[in-house]
């Protein structure tokens, strides 16, 4: 649910990074945070456990600039990836405008990817959203690992509707901004339709 503030001439959109545990959602946000001009970003908030696993969410507000006289703000959130945090995960999807699914390319995580994607679809439905129509981008992360499955295979198993798909290596930043740009573009295009 986009928040258009005519009084302050601002538009606020919410993007959620989804995916299985340890797939690199937080690392995506961390990279975006590190590489963004200080004037364009707020604080990166991480509600994490002592071992740095996301407990509730990470949050990063980004000002992307002005479009047609409106300040464009994106609020980036991650969800906790671990299976047993489903109740928290569901809460974060409330009012989402666009979703990035971060898949872990390692062979051993294929089942976890598929399970998380199904979980995303189910949780979106509970909020009245449809994965088939919501702005959505797939990121194939951890491409640098030797155990990474071939891109074709990942694409076949995880690409849901021909959504834009990016290969990434989040700690080095490969594919991170391409992913963000693709989802932001879809969200803004969606506004044009309304």
């Amino acid at each position: 649910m986009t928040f258009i503030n005519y009084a302050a001439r601002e538009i606020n959109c919410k993007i959620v990074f989804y995916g299985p545990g340890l797939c690199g959602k937080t690392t995506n946000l961390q990279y975006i945070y590190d590489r963004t001009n200080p004037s364009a970003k707020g604080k990166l908030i991480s509600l994490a456990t002592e071992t740095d696993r996301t407990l509730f969410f990470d949050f990063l507000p980004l000002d992307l600039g002005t479009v047609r006289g409106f300040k464009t703000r994106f609020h980036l959130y991650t969800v906790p990836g671990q299976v047993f945090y489903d109740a928290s995960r569901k809460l974060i999807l409330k009012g989402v405008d666009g979703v990035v699914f971060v898949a872990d390319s390692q062979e051993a995580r294929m089942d976890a990817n598929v399970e998380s994607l199904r979980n995303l679809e189910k949780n979106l439905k509970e909020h009245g959203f449809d994965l088939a129509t919501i702005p959505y981008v797939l990121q194939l992360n951890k491409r640098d690992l030797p155990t990474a499955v071939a891109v074709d295979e990942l694409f076949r198993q995880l690409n849901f509707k021909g959504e834009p798909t990016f290969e990434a290596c989040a700690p080095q930043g490969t594919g991170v901004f391409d992913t963000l740009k693709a989802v932001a573009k879809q969200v803004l295009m969606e506004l044009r339709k309304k």
Partner: protein
Amino acid sequence: MSDFLLFDEEFHLIKDVISRLKTDAQAKVVFIVDKNGQQIAAQGDIESLDTTSLASLTAGNVAATDGLAKLIGEKEFPVLFHEGERDNVYIAIVGQRVILVVIFDEHSSLGLVRLRVRKATQDLEKIFDTIQKKVETEKDRKDLDSPFAEITDEDIDSLFRD
């Protein structure tokens, strides 16, 4: 799900209500957040506060508490109160849609804040009802130009240039 639109007129009405509440409750800061974590308006000493983070964490807090409420068979917990050494935070849900947050210290008291919030909540509910109605009628109005109706690929690319 329809978007949330905030127009000048209601924005000023909201500002008036929270400004009055800040004075009446002798609070330091009063702000309003939507349930998705986006700040709608703020009044008071907000220069030293990261209001964007506050808004997001408040919404997360309310969402988690809502989840808790449902687990034990409650509809919601309409009021949350956090007591600190110096500052306290009083959170009230307005019309199940938005969240009113009052930060206060020893210059005020929980009783006073609770009393004043009750009155302000009623005023705010009316304003948000009006906004809701407006959003519903404006939706069909072709003359309300969405700022994004004519957005181009070029506009979007320009956002990512640096």
